[in-house]
């Protein structure tokens, strides 16, 4: 060990419970009696901050060679009393930071001021990490990469947890689908590793598993606006997030972990007087430049051949003097307090937040309450309790298709007089459609750490995550007994309500024996048992035709129906791990986990997942002689993890339903497969961590090769048995290969200014290697061997002409020449799609990441600029195929007959012949570089903060999603690409095109943070 050896023994008490508090060792748990009473003494006081000027808590400040020391408080301040008079060497040290040493002279009866500014180590080898280990270990012993996000508040102003992850962690793709406030995204780590099952990573909060669904209620067609259960947690109450990315790292989580694991640790209490943190946020959310960015829709009058046009923003503004767009307000208030005694610490926080979308009927209000308690009973026993409560009330924009507002953006047109040009419904009527979700959620966990012997640490975590959602889709009745001319019988009133209750119960026991076999060899032998159960119950109620406007309760409807569902899944797993450390530099790990799951078939025995890992801190070897590289660690890991089949997919089931004479009957439901097992992913990852140029540059590099065998595919069964559905079988194979690089550089460091650069690069290539005999799919988005999951195929016309008598002005489109796979050109008017559809690209980006520049001036002013990029992927969107196909409102298919401008023959041909369904009309290269964040943070001078009684105060201005720096496709067949990330998230992982989702808006906000 390095600096830690210098720490007074009293401070070496490790934090009981790796889950509690910060990942650094002491975590502020205790400052034991430090003082050997002195006759002539003074004191030293000061403050510890990091390079960004943020306070550093839990820093050990001690006098070298003595027993005198203390820990800094959450505001960074420390006080070292009773210091003997004389000159001392004072050291400030915290894991993850480079230690700083100062000479200080203390005289009797005086207090000397001495502050520190710590710089992060490029590679924090002694950092304690928990996720993917049997109870926590130092990062240096970990054979796989583990990403950690700390200081969420300081890094950026997250609106939700998903926003924290956007672009910040290599290999984590956030598929942003909508600009609606309150809606979520889809998270994908290291590409698509399952064809048919959920690719969402597992989510743990304070050691227990929580709902990771991304779909929410099915009651309303929300367009691409899935609820995200991960966003139910308040970023303000989070201390850090650990992410392990693949099977090699997630082996100990077993079945369901092959898509990775995200573990959230909430903030804990600290020793000392209460410290209050308050924050007030105000801001706006809006759609940038709607007049300039949204496309005009065109029509040619069939009689006069005159071109008319319509615009969802400009036309409405000119005609009505107002539009459906607004600058949505955003506000949030939070307050937290932490403190406690060495044996009992607390953290309590609460917040209230409200924001509106850029259409005023999209709103999101949520509040959180959290109480965390840590109790140290004695040296052997401690408890950590976490309790979080959350409520939200979100109103989504989306009424079911076709009653969407976004539909008006691209297929509204002047001929739709009944709706003033809007597509199927006016904004006024849309406000009468309430698509609302109300969620109540509570998550609690209790962690017990028990150390019966010095060499044995056992940990038990129990907890439960419960959520209930009431989702309504209510069409308010508009008139008495008459259907509405625009929305038909829905004008009589219609309500669908879905009540969903979910419960996740976790039990996690682990025991680790740590033994020094010889002075240079130590072992950690671990055993663990995990049990997990989830239940999901739903009631779906429907009513229509209300007697009078104003009625909305289901019992006031003339016709009502009800349906229900219940799903349950249980999993039990045991594991054992052996870690051998040699001289604290070389670590070898072997582990195995066995799982059984209620979803496995009766003929399937337990799933076994082995793991091997090795790591070597070369830079601490005596032979290391590379001056420029002060830290260097090699690591490699190979492991397996699984993903369980759908609940009850192994069981042959019959579904009850009403039958003759109003008595019950059954029908064949699902054909089960008793041999069904989990999908098993094997992964090898190798890489290195390096600190260069005296920790001015930190680099981590990882290369991974992942293969999912036994991938679940639906195989058609012979219908003669009465089952007409498919059956799940473990027959497919997919692979992902890629690399991840993170670079942190202190480019410039002077007394006035610091310039930090963070670059995240991730590359991934996905391929289906075996479909197990299942025929490849057809269509534009395909499942075919040799291509990525959902790879895009469409024809590629290169030229076309107008001729012939069919059109009075231009003739008809002919000689549409298409490029074939072999590069030859053929006339695709004489086509079969099988011949002309060729591979275009993949759904997932080949490269993605971010570049963040931070400029810190005078230690209290920080300017950060973050650009995110996604390169090498395609999307297909109805915004283009629909405007050129069914609705034909794109200029490419109308032209301007009055000016003698012919339509694009290619677009017109595809529109006429294929009804616009041909892929190339909707699909394009979606690569882009986005200006994701510009942030300016100013920390007020302490004296100024003290005037309001605060120990610290800061003001921050943030702008999010400010525009594009570059896009591969700005215009596609005369239509501007508003946002290439708009995609469909609510209907599965592949096979779908973008459809009617509001694009992401822009956020500007100001936040005041005060610490008392």
């Amino acid at each position: 060990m390095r600096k830690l050896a210098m720490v007074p023994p009293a401070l070496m008490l490790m934090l009981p419970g790796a889950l509690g508090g910060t990942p650094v060792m002491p975590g502020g748990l205790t400052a034991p009696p430090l003082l050997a009473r002195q006759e002539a003494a003074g004191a030293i006081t000061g403050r510890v901050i990091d390079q960004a000027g943020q306070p550093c808590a839990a820093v050990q400040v001690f006098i070298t060679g003595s027993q005198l020391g203390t820990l800094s408080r959450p505001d960074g301040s420390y006080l070292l009393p009773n210091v003997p008079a004389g000159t001392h060497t004072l050291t400030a040290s915290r894991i993850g930071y480079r230690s700083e040493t100062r000479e200080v002279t203390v005289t009797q009866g005086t207090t000397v001021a001495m502050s520190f500014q710590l710089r992060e180590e490029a590679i924090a080898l002694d950092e304690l990490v928990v996720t993917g280990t049997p109870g926590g270990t130092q990062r240096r012993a970990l054979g796989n990469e583990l990403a950690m996000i700390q200081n969420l508040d300081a890094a950026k102003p997250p609106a939700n947890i998903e926003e924290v992850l956007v672009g910040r962690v290599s290999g984590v793709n956030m598929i942003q689908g909508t600009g609606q406030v309150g809606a979520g995204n889809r998270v994908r780590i290291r590409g698509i590793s399952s064809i048919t099952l959920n690719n969402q990573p597992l989510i743990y909060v304070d050691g227990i598993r929580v709902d990771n669904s991304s779909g929410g209620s099915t009651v309303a067609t929300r367009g691409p606006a899935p609820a995200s259960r991960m966003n139910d947690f308040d970023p303000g109450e989070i201390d850090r997030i650990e992410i392990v990315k693949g099977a090699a790292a997630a082996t100990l989580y077993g079945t369901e972990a092959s898509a990775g694991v995200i573990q959230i640790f909430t903030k804990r209490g600290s020793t000392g007087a209460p410290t209050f943190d308050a924050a007030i946020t105000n801001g706006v959310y809006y759609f940038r430049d709607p007049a300039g960015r949204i496309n005009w829709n065109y029509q040619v009058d069939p009689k006069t051949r005159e071109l008319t046009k319509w615009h969802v923003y400009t036309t409405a503004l000119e005609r009505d003097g107002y539009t459906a767009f607004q600058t949505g307000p955003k506000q949030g208030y939070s307050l937290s307090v932490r403190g406690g005694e060495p044996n009992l610490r607390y953290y309590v926080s609460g917040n209230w937040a409200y924001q509106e979308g850029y259409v005023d009927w999209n709103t999101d209000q949520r509040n959180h309450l959290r109480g965390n308690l840590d109790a140290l009973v004695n040296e052997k026993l401690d408890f950590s309790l976490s309790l979080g409560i959350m409520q939200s009330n979100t109103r989504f924009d989306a009424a079911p298709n076709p009653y969407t507002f976004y539909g008006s953006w691209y297929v509204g047109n002047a001929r739709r007089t009944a709706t003033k040009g809007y597509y199927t419904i006016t904004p006024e009527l849309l406000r009468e459609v309430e698509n609302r979700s109300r969620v109540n959620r509570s998550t609690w966990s209790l962690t017990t750490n028990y150390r019966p012997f010095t060499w044995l640490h056992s940990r038990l975590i129990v907890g439960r995550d419960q959520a209930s959602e009431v989702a309504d889709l209510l069409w308010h009745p508009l008139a008495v007994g008459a259907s509405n001319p625009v929305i038909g019988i829905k004008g009589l009133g219609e309500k669908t309500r879905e009540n969903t209750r979910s419960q996740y119960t976790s039990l996690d026991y682990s025991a680790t024996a740590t033994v020094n076999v010889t002075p240079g060899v130590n072992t950690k032998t671990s055993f663990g048992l995990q049990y997990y159960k989830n239940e999901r119950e739903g009631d779906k109620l429907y009513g229509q035709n209300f007697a009078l406007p104003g009625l909305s309760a289901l019992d006031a409807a003339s016709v009502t129906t009800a349906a229900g569902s219940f799903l349950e899944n249980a999993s039990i797993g045991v594991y054992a791990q052996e870690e051998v450390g040699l001289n604290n530099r070389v670590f070898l790990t072997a582990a195995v986990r066995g799982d059984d799951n209620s979803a496995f078939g009766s003929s399937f025995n337990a799933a076994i997942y082995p793991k091997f890992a090795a790591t070597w801190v070369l830079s601490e070897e005596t032979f290391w002689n590379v001056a420029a590289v002060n830290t260097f660690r090699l690591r490699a890991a190979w492991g397996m993890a699984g993903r369980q089949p759908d609940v009850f997919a192994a069981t042959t089931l019959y579904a009850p339903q009403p039958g003759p004479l109003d008595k019950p009957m059954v029908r064949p439901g699902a054909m089960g497969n008793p041999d069904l097992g989990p999908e098993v992913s094997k992964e090898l990852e190798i890489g290195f961590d390096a600190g260069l140029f005296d920790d001015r540059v930190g680099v981590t590099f990882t290369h991974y090769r992942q293969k999912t065998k036994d991938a679940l595919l639906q195989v058609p069964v012979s219908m003669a048995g009465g089952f007409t559905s498919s059956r799940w079988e473990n027959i497919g194979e997919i692979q992902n290969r890629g690399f991840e690089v993170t670079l942190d550089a202190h480019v410039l460091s002077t007394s006035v200014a610091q310039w930090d650069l963070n670059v995240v690069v991730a590359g991934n290539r996905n391929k289906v290697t075996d479909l197990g005999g299942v025929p490849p799919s057809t269509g534009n988005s395909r499942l075919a061997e040799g291509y990525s999951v959902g790879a895009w195929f469409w024809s590629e016309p290169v030229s076309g002409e107008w001729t012939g008598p069919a059109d009075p002005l231009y003739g008809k489109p002919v000689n549409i020449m298409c490029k074939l796979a072999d590069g030859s050109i053929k006339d695709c008017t004489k086509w079969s799609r099988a011949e002309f559809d060729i591979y275009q690209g993949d759904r997932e980006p080949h490269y993605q990441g971010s570049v963040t520049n931070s400029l810190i001036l005078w230690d209290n002013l920080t300017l950060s600029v973050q650009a995110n990029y996604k390169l090498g992927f395609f999307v297909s969107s109805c915004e283009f195929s629909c405007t050129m196909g069914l609705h034909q409102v794109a200029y490419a298919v109308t032209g301007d007959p009055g000016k003698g401008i012919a339509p694009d023959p290619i677009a017109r041909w595809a529109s006429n012949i294929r009804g616009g369904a041909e892929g190339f009309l909707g699909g394009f290269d979606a690569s882009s570089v986005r200006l994701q964040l510009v942030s300016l943070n100013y920390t007020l001078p302490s004296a100024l903060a003290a005037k309001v009684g605060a120990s610290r105060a800061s003001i921050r201005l943030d702008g999010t999603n400010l525009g594009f720096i570059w896009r591969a496709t700005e215009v596609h067949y005369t239509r501007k690409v508003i946002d290439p990330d708009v995609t469909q998230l609510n209907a599965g992982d592949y096979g779908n095109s973008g459809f009617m989702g509001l694009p992401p808006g822009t956020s500007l906000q100001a936040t005041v943070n005060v610490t008392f």
Partner: protein
Amino acid sequence: MSTFLDWTRDRRRYIRVVVGVVAMATLVGCDKLLEVDLPGQIESTKLEDPQNAELVARSVQGLFECFYTSHTGGSSSFVDEGWLASQRARGDWGVRSIGAGGGAACPQETWNPIPSAYQSYGFGARAIRQFGQWTDAQVPNRKLLLSYIRSYTAYTLMLMAETICRGVVLEEYGPLVNNPGVLKKAEELFTAALDGADAQARNLALVGRARTRLDLGDLTGAAADAGQVTAGFSYNATYGSVPERYNRVYTEYWRDLAFTVAPARRNLKVNGVLDPRTLTVEQKKFGQDGKNLIWSVAKYNSLSSPIRLASWREAQLIIAEARLGQEAVARINALRATYNLPLYSPADVNDKSEILAAVLIERGREFFFEGGNRMNDLLRYFDADDWQHGLDSQGAPIYDMYCWPIPDREIDANPKNLNLDMNIERLPSQMNHPTRGVVPKKGWAAN
């Protein structure tokens, strides 16, 4: 961190802790921990309990009835009784068009009857095996219930054989059985259904067997069966007001305005007198396509309107078709008399061609939108001129299809026994209809 000596000293306690935890887990039992509830579904084994025999029998009936309404609507639209009034159904209930790709069956799939037919047959076959394993002591009325199960299953097979081009797969992953083979299987089941049948079940089985034998060309056997049917007998498939039990002809032709009765089949007349068997109701509304006015089938005027499955009237027309001549005229007129319609008087009672045409015309009226009979007649006495050609009611070209395909799903699941090119031809010649030496007088289908 401890020393090796510490470890040695404490290891026994450590081992006790680990063993204790493992023992606890074992005591609780993994299986117990992994037990989960499924209150919304029924596991297959529960249907093996004789206490659930009535549930199984009722399910056979319910699945058949769901298939039957889909088959009735689909076959009527496939031939000349129905017209599309919406775009969406063209691929399934379109004129001479039905999808081969549909996998969902009742009640999710309301259009394509083919998967529902397999569902009905497969469940029925399982029920027959299950009832065979139970005893009379275990199941009250076992034989009677089994009689109905056999009849429903046989009806499904018969209807499949009458419409699907090449045949049916009768065993999971088994070979394709051609249409006569399927009809033979249906005949066997109808015969078995007579065992333990009461009067109603017997009549149901007899009408079914008569129709099957007629399809097989066994005219003598068909007439003999039909002759045993009790006068006035009629048996319906039943429907209800919940979505799983809807009469789909009502929902599509009346409530949802998706189809209309074709102009040539509306309110037909006999010598100027309105034929009550083909009553249609003018809705005075456009269909979903906004261009075809809706005329609905009068006898299906509610969600729960029954659809006739077997009757003495059908038996009379089976006898008429089998025997032709004066007996056919008498049977036709006996039926017409009950409707107060003018009687039929042939130009030449010995002109088999004319009499056969008259019987088929009568069947067209009697079985108006009922059980696929008209499609069966058009296929049994195939003449391409009797089928629609050109453009459909949506202005789209009518497909070149005369009978129904083997589902793609079965072909995908069963590649050993089924060739991928199975569905290229969809011609009546594939159905192996027996020839009886008499061709109906041309033009019968237009009446």
